């Protein structure tokens, strides 16, 4: 006998819209003529994310009253999960705007054909014939859809599938950078291998949990009472000899899989390398959205287990709390201390993202329901600042100037008079004069990340630390504040460089140092620019020590730092992020009230 399950289609609508649009996007690749493809894809992607968000908004009043389990919990919409979905949709929308911007150079951040071997004539041909990889848009939609599913399921197998759905497109996207392609491909390979490793740990954990409970769902299927992880715990299964070890080890491994995605120490090592190598708009997208999805999933797994065990065996809850506390402390320490010696903007932001994972975990470690609201707010505040900041990075570029050739004001060639992004912090000197508005926006994002009052970041951090404190972890909250102080130092250092230092592109300077020793830097990042005529020195794997690459540029040419004009979308995204950062800092109450509704139920 097979009975068709009753499905609450409305509850699935946000996912269906986003993932469905991804499928349509693939068809667009096949059937829409090349000329119209890019525009079609952008419109489709933005419309899908907006539509997804609209459905979330429609669902919200209903879900905050009564959470919904669809198909026995495969999709479980609690207010917390739906909130996370909404934040992912909003951040993905902003992220796609940055992705879609071709800037005044007429080029987006992606390779004309990502499959071409770097440095070959085929690549040159593809570049010259103006090819574009519009597949990135459906990939983004799949990733976003995967993240939304990831954040809203009760079923560990579905969670695993979602994990792959969100990860695989990201691996591909990481490899598609237009410039520094070796670095980009290396980043993708690393991300893929380590991601596979983390997935393996995750699924092994799922297996152990299944061994313990005979189910991979926490709440279980309402139609089959008594089956599920929580019912198993409550029925006293954990008291069995060795059974609680199964549960704890299983949950621990699942949590490790999730912490990998969160970017928490010691599962963070991929973060700086991948964030640096990936095309910057993608970095922004994944730094913001993946973090939301992963933290949301983490909170759900942890809190569901905690709810289950706290009456039966509080010891297990203490163990879980201990794991998070240890990881949070490590993450904050590594993120801030190693972050403070970085000399590359993207790497600095990567370590900042690690540090924020730590701050988020400080709140999560509080293990109380209030944390749900503050975590959602934190994710929103962090995501907005991150997408904005990486959006700014996409616009600060190197430019090769050949005096006397008229190139200075001349057309932007195929090979690019405007080269790749100028990500050395030293190159950002004097940016405040070159682009005051952009600098102001970037400063705002940094201040928000630092947690200065009147920005969203302050309210967010306040919430996270309050969460830890109300969970009895005063010392952890104090540690969080101290780590924030160290983090402020490195954000402010960047600010000082941008606003108070003079630009270093003095025309009389014939020798341009393109790369310098970076403490804690991978050799891979010493590769600086594959476009242009400056040959690059070291490539990946040259050795464990950082490499110094000094490139002699002929006196006739020099590299300047310039700010390219956005064609619109990125500027809109940056402006929206800046305004939102201020509004969430000055008038946070409406949003706080909204996320507050999320903490009424088990996440």
């Amino acid at each position, binding site marked *: 006998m097979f009975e068709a399950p009753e499905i609450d289609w409305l509850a699935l609508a946000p996912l269906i819209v986003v993932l469905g649009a991804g499928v349509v996007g693939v068809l667009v690749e096949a059937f829409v003529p090349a000329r119209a493809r890019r525009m079609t894809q952008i419109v489709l992607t933005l419309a899908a994310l907006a539509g997804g968000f609209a459905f979330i908004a429609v669902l919200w009043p209903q879900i905050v009253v009564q959470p919904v389990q669809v198909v026995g919990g495969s999709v479980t919409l609690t207010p917390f999960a739906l909130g996370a979905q909404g934040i992912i949709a909003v951040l993905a929308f902003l992220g796609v705007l940055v992705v879609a911007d071709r800037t005044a150079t007429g080029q987006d951040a992606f390779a004309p054909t990502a499959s071409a071997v770097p440095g070959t004539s085929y690549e040159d041909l593809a570049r010259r014939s103006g090819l574009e990889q519009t597949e990135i848009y459906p990939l983004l939609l799949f990733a976003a859809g995967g993240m939304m599913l990831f954040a809203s399921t009760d079923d560990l197998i579905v969670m695993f599938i979602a994990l792959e759905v969100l990860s695989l497109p990201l691996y591909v996207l990481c490899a598609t950078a237009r410039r520094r392609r070796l670095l980009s491909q290396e980043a993708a390979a690393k991300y893929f291998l380590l991601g596979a490793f983390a997935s393996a740990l995750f699924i092994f954990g799922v297996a152990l949990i299944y061994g313990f409970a005979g189910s991979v769902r926490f709440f279980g299927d309402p139609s089959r009472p008594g089956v599920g992880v929580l019912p198993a715990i409550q029925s006293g299964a954990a*008291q069995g000899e060795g059974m*609680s070890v199964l549960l*704890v080890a299983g949950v621990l491994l699942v949590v490790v899989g999730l912490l990998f995605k969160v970017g928490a120490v*010691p599962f963070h090592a991929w973060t700086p390398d991948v964030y640096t190598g990936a095309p910057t708009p993608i970095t922004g997208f994944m730094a913001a959205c993946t973090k939301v999805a992963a933290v949301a999933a983490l909170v759900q797994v942890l809190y569901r287990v905690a709810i289950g065990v706290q009456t039966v065996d509080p010891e297990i809850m203490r163990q879980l709390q*201990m*794991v998070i506390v240890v990881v949070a402390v490590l993450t904050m320490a590594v993120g801030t201390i190693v972050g403070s010696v970085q000399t590359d903007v993207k790497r600095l932001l990567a370590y900042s993202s690690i540090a924020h994972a730590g701050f988020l975990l400080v709140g999560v470690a509080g293990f109380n329901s209030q944390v749900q609201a503050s975590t959602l707010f934190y994710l929103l505040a962090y995501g907005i600042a991150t997408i904005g900041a990486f959006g700014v990075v996409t616009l600060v570029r190197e430019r090769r100037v050949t005096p006397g050739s008229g190139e200075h004001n001349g057309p932007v060639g195929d090979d690019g008079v405007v080269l790749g992004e100028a990500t050395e912090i030293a190159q950002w000197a004097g940016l405040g004069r070159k682009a005051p508005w952009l600098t102001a926006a970037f400063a705002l994002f940094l201040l928000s990340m630092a947690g200065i009052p009147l920005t969203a970041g302050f309210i967010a951090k306040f919430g996270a630390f309050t969460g830890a404190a*109300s969970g009895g972890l005063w010392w952890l909250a104090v540690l969080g504040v101290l780590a924030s102080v160290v983090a402020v130092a490195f954000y402010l250092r960047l600010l000082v460089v941008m606003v108070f230092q003079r630009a270093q592109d003095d025309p009389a300077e014939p020798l341009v140092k393109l790369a310098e020793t970076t403490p*804690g830097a991978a050799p891979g990042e010493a590769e600086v620019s594959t476009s242009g005529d400056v040959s690059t020195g070291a490539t990946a794997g040259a050795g464990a020590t950082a490499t110094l690459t000094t490139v002699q540029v002929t006196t006739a040419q020099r590299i300047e730092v310039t700010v390219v004009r956005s064609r619109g979308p990125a500027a809109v995204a940056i402006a929206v992020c800046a305004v939102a950062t201020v509004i969430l800092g000055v*008038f*946070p109450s409406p949003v706080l009230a909204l996320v507050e509704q999320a903490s009424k139920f088990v996440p």
Partner: protein
Amino acid sequence: MNDVIGLAPWLVGFPLIGAAILLLGGKATDRWGHWLGVLASAASAVIGFILMFRMIGTPAEERSIDHHLWTWLSAGGLDVDLGLRLDPLSLTFVMLVTFVGTLIHVYSVAYMDHDPHRRRFFGYLNLFVAAMLTLVLADSYLLLFVGWEGVGLASYLLIGFWDTGRPSARENAVAAKKAFVMNRIGDMGLIAAMALLFAGTGALDFGTTLSDDAVGSLSEATATAIGLCLLLAACGKSAQFPLQAWLGDAMAGPTPVSALIHAATMVTAGVYLMVRSGPILEAAPTAQLVVVIVGAVTLLFGAVVGTAKDDIKKALAASTMSQIGYMMLAAGLGPAGYAFAIFHLLTHGFFKAGLFLGAGSVMHAMGDQTDMRRFGGLSRFLPITWITMGLGWLAILGIPPFSGFWSKDGIIEAAFMPVEGQPWRAWVFGSVAVLGAAITAFYMTRLFFMTFGGRRPRWTENQHPHESSPLMWWPLVFLGVGSAALGAVLGIGGTFVTWLEPVVGHAEHHEPVLPVPVIITTTLVVVVLGALLAFRMYAVALVPEEAPRGSVLTRAARRDLYQDTANETLVLKPAHGVARLVQVGDRDVVDRGWSVLPQAVSWFGAVFRKAQSGYVRSYAAGMAGGVLVIAVVVWLVVGLGGAQ
């Protein structure tokens, strides 16, 4: 009242928007920016008038309105609400700030006419007005602090406004920094006071913290500590002893700034803080006594310094310090003094702004000369300035019926009120107040006649003094009228005291230790004597163009009674000493013995540098190792649950 309360946020809003447009708009707003600044300030003034007239129309007991704006954040036990408090006290300030502020904006249009950065100047002025209004309208110490810092910022920016392209650029920048740093010391006091208040009462809004319950729940020691911290804040902002040294140097800023910020409004914020925090001070008699002493010391200090200054602006700055000393003294006297402190603050705001703008007009006429020994005989050339400054002069002397008489006389009488158990207080502080009035008469008369009187001009070469443009003298006329009449209008029949009563409470009337007519007569006699002495020395006799060596006291007064020297010896030198000690200690003790910490950090860095090798295999090993480490830590710290 409720139908217009919605306008209140715009009091702050208009100047804030003005500042935003002017500062963010850049060169695009250069052409009309100054008029936008004037308009923003004037719009605030109009709203201020509307609100005040409506408030006069409401019954006295309904005159304190807390207008909730929004909840900034609410977390657990802490609700941070932002709101405005409209009551007679805050509205008095609103009127002073917006009305005098607008006049000074208008004046500045002409005064800063040739300055290439006039637009930026107006942006800062608007920012100041917005911050000052935030300060006085705040309904909690937290929002007050926002305004407090805002005016500090605006003051810093404006003192150092001419920090490029002038011979004195460096000095100006130093003066700005000096003001900023000394104000920071005071701000620490305010922060500490807020922390103590929050610890003691669990709130920071006036409604809760100043209620009888909350104040009653504070121990006297706590109340005293809070009171003293608040006093420290007030001393920083209001240039009271011992944090007074920055005000004289602050005169490096453009004259309209001196008039608006360093005479009429910002420097009186300390007095506002004292009066607003009255209930706390009343619970701490020791703190009150310290307030009175600080006021008395500063009032004499400023007056003595004022007698010797030859720079017209610095003389006025010293006078400001002294007059705020009067207000502070009154604020420390409790309910009997609050109303007069604010009354004097109001009249002083008018006559001192008038005097400063007059000084600006004189400087304008004399090619930015500020040395009074180089003035003289200007009354014929600057008739309007002469008359309006004359009104200000009579007002500050306290000659009836001019403004200053009504307010200052009130303070002197209040100072003579007996205090139970401490009969010496009335005599000491009363005498100080009278003595201060005499010295005030001397230095202001000196200033007035060195500038306008004298038998022959002592100008430098090529001086062609002329009256300034109407944009500059119309504000002078308004302020002159205020100097002449405001005191009588508000003082006769105690109108102003009654107006403030809902806020500061009704003062029990005590008889001063001397009969009131005797006090008034004595004061007037010494004032006239002081003025006559100055007249003889600086109007009848010839004033030398070079300052004579003078007595010990004169020389000391010229150097601000060695306040900088004192600061240097008492604060900077010891601080340097401590710094040196720390440096030596750091090098010899910390670096040698405790180099563990930096080593640990660099070791940490090195480890992670190695860890961040770029090799996937080591990353994966790190993850696997991490899982193990975490498992072990959990096992060690908590023990495996089921295995017990």
